[in-house]
């Protein structure tokens, strides 16, 4: 130990049979062995010349991954607490760490337990509960299994834990023996690790963005951030990109660059920690004004909007509404308020514009009210002319008042339920007639070809018209009649479309950067999110939904969501219309003939024939029932990440039809709940309009059609994002080769003038 109690020795380890010795010294081109190696007992080894290994790597470049756990090494390299551990030491750690998985709510260790391991969070969240009823939350990149009294003069290896550690979501962590860790790295991680917890909490707690959070929320927020160390420069935000995360610079520098509107480079700036960027991403993925690059040897906290969304879902408060962030554009609704009002919103989606119809539509919807009002006036007038009190007039007037009021309420609700919403991802149009039907049609912004309007003379006077949103689909028109502020609505849709297109350009630049990072072997890719699953939805559970789910007509398997038709769609197919009356008549006849005492001899045969016929009819009925049920069971609608599939199979393999449509060709999605029966049992049709000549793929009679439409929309959005990334990757694919050749030529003295 030195004066500060730190061990003098490091990179100390004992290798067991199967180990590759000297591999990290070779792979990381240190030129010399970083350690001295000695046999601790008689040993046998294969000595491999590094020249042969170099030829092997040249011939089989992917062999590097088999020589050493490079993925694990790459992850350890981004853990802030290991930032001063040299590469060979990280390699030794990568050899011995044990990847562990914990389930949600699984206790990892309890307070008072003796623990010889320490843990590093790869992805997930851990809550530490201390004796003073204080809790701390840890996210990606944090260490736990630390003891405040451990080293330099305290215990090394087995230590008593002062808190209990519980995985609060699915967790992957690396475990390593505390003693082994100290021997390899040469430092005791406990106190620096605990100090790091405080640093994260204080840093987040002091940010103005979260100033309206209560103390518990600020502490818990630390469990939703990824703490990353970047050993070399790393592009974090690309100008124009819809950033997905807020970035907090903890230590080190950031370079901020921007191009002006003409594409000219503006002066760069350097920022020092602590500071933050991209906070508007927490309101929903929003385009960024500048490019932000982490310099090498810097530490960052990343709060992904997905993780913040998850935090918002589990917290009783509306956290998004409590953010102190000025949005770049006017957003009509965000956070839980938006989700409560529009449960179909996708995670991170914001409502930009909301439009109801012009007031003249209100009068049109209330036409029955005005007619009833007319009758009421007539009755009142007639009643006033007649002498004395007329009971029938009074009763009629009372009845008409009641009817008029009902019609008025109906008209108001009907008017309020029709709207057009523009979000940052799509245009959605809903019509709903209370207790009668519901209809919703939507078009992703990318699929919109043009936005027009039609307006006649009266509309011009009163300020309304019909907005027409045109997509490429055969039925790809969304027409919203009696629209007000048409120009503003058109401009909003156009602006949102343009923004989505800019995203593609920014994505390309990001991909070029990533390709070059990979080529230069400086790429690091710690998990971007803490919460590994999909965001929980808060859509209310209704008795209709329970009824639909109880029939098990929807399930997910390997990324494939499958629906069957609602069970109620079986009823018309069974053929009650002819089976029940025939069955009833025959049963009646049989009963009558059998119970008729003294049945004449000549009718006994007829009675038996009726009985036989009844049995036959029952068998036919059972066969028909089985056929219909098996047919219903075999017919499915499937949704994958790339396509929708309608599978129709007759029983006994008599016939099988499979029709598919690529998700990428779907122009818009329409949901219909066409009748009160459909509303009561919560089922309906979902129509996916495609650009193909075939027209539409229709999911008939699916339970909870709103959720089906939402799932399809969500998958379309994900596919579009993947396609954009893939396109950008393809465009950037050859660029590293160009740069490499350019660099070689530029450095070659024979090519210099």
């Amino acid at each position, binding site marked *: 130990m030195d004066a500060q109690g730190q061990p*003098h*020795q*490091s*990179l*100390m*380890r*004992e*290798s*067991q*049979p*199967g*180990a*590759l*010795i*000297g*591999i990290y*010294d*070779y792979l990381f081109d*240190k*030129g*010399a*062995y*970083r*350690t*001295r*190696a*000695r*046999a*601790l*007992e*008689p*040993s*046998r*080894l*294969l*000595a*491999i*010349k*590094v*020249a*042969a290994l170099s*030829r*092997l790597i040249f*011939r*089989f470049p992917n*062999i590097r991954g088999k*020589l050493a756990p490079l993925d694990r090494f790459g992850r350890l390299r981004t853990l802030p607490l290991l930032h*001063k*551990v*040299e590469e060979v*030491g990280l390699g030794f750690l990568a050899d011995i760490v044990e990847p562990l998985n914990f389930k949600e709510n699984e206790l990892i260790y309890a307070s008072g337990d003796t623990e010889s391991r320490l843990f590093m969070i790869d992805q997930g969240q851990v809550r530490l509960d201390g004796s003073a009823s204080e809790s701390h939350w840890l996210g990606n990149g944090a260490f736990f299994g630390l003891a405040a009294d451990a080293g330099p003069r305290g215990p090394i290896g087995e230590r008593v834990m002062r808190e209990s550690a519980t995985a609060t979501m699915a967790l992957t962590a690396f475990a390593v023996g505390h003693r082994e860790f100290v021997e390899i*790295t*040469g*430092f005791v991680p*406990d*106190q*620096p690790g*605990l*100090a790091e917890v*405080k640093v994260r909490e204080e840093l987040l707690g002091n940010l103005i963005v979260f100033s309206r959070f209560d103390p518990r929320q600020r502490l818990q927020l630390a469990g939703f951030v990824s703490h990353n160390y970047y050993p070399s420069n790393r592009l974090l935000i690309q100008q124009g990109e819809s950033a997905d995360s807020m970035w907090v610079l903890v230590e080190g520098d950031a370079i901020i660059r921007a191009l002006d509107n003409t594409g000219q480079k503006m002066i760069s700036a350097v920022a020092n920690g602590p500071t933050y960027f991209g906070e508007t991403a927490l309101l929903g993925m929003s385009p960024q004004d500048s490019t932000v690059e982490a310099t090498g040897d810097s530490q960052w906290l990343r709060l992904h909007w997905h993780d913040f969304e998850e935090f918002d879902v589990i917290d009783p408060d509306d956290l998004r509404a409590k953010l102190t962030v000025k949005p770049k554009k006017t957003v009509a609704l965000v956070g839980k308020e938006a989700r409560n009002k529009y449960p179909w919103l996708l995670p991170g989606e914001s409502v930009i514009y909301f439009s109801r119809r012009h007031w003249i539509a209100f009068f049109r919807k209330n036409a029955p009210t005005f007619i009833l009002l007319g009758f009421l006036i007539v009755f009142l007038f007639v009643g006033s002319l007649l002498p004395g009190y007329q009971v029938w007039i009074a009763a009629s007037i009372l009845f008409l008042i009641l009817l008029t009021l009902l019609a008025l309420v109906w008209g108001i609700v009907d008017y309020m339920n029709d709207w057009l919403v523009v979000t940052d991802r799509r245009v959605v149009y809903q019509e709903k007639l209370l207790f009668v039907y519901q209809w919703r049609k939507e078009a992703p912004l990318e699929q919109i070809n043009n936005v027009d309007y039609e307006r006649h003379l009266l509309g011009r006077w009163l300020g309304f018209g019909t907005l027409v949103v045109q997509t490429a689909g055969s039925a790809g028109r969304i027409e919203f009649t009696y629209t007000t502020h048409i120009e503003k609505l058109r401009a909003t849709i156009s602006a949102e479309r343009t923004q989505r297109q800019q995203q593609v350009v920014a994505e390309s630049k990001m991909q070029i950067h990533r390709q070059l990072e990979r080529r230069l072997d400086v790429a690091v890719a710690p998990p971007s999110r803490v919460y590994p699953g999909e965001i929980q939805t808060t859509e209310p559970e209704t008795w209709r939904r329970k009824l639909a789910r109880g029939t098990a007509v929807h399930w997910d398997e390997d990324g494939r969501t499958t629906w069957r038709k609602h069970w109620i769609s079986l009823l018309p197919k069974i053929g009650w219309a002819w089976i029940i009356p025939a069955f009833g008549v025959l049963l009646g006849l049989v009963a009558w003939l059998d119970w008729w005492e003294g049945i004449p001899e000549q009718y006994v045969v007829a009675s038996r024939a009726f009985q036989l016929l009844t049995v036959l009819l029952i068998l036919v009925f059972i066969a028909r029932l089985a056929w219909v049920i098996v047919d219903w069971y075999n017919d499915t609608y499937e949704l994958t990440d790339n396509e929708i599939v309608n599978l129709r199979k007759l029983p006994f393999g008599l016939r099988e039809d499979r029709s598919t449509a690529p998700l990428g060709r779907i122009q818009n999605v329409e949901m219909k709940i066409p009748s009160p029966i459909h509303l009561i049992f919560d089922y309906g049709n979902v129509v996916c309009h495609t650009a193909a000549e075939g027209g539409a793929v229709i999911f008939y009679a699916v339970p909870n059609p709103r959720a089906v439409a939402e799932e399809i929309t969500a998958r379309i959005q994900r596919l579009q994002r993947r396609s954009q990334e893939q396109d950008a990757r393809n465009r950037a694919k050859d660029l590293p080769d160009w740069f490499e050749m350019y660099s070689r030529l530029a450095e070659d003295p024979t090519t210099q003038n």
Partner: protein
Amino acid sequence: MAELYQDVDYLEPGVVVAQLNFLQDLDGEDVKQIFTQAVKDIQLHGRELLHAQDEPVEYVWVLLDGKIGEVRRGGRTGPAAPVPDA
């Protein structure tokens, strides 16, 4: 500088391929060519030095049997500054 393990013969490439797990699933002929005159089977007695610190990297070893200890003397890799109290 004298070459290490001069008195030990090179292993036949086929033997090498059979012994090294990471070579499985690779093209056998290519690998045999690469590992011709490249691998030796060596024995160390207890406390015998395998390589010294700061010596140039010439070999990588696969431990077949026994136990090898590694250690670096001097030059701490952890944080140099005293750690704050948590």
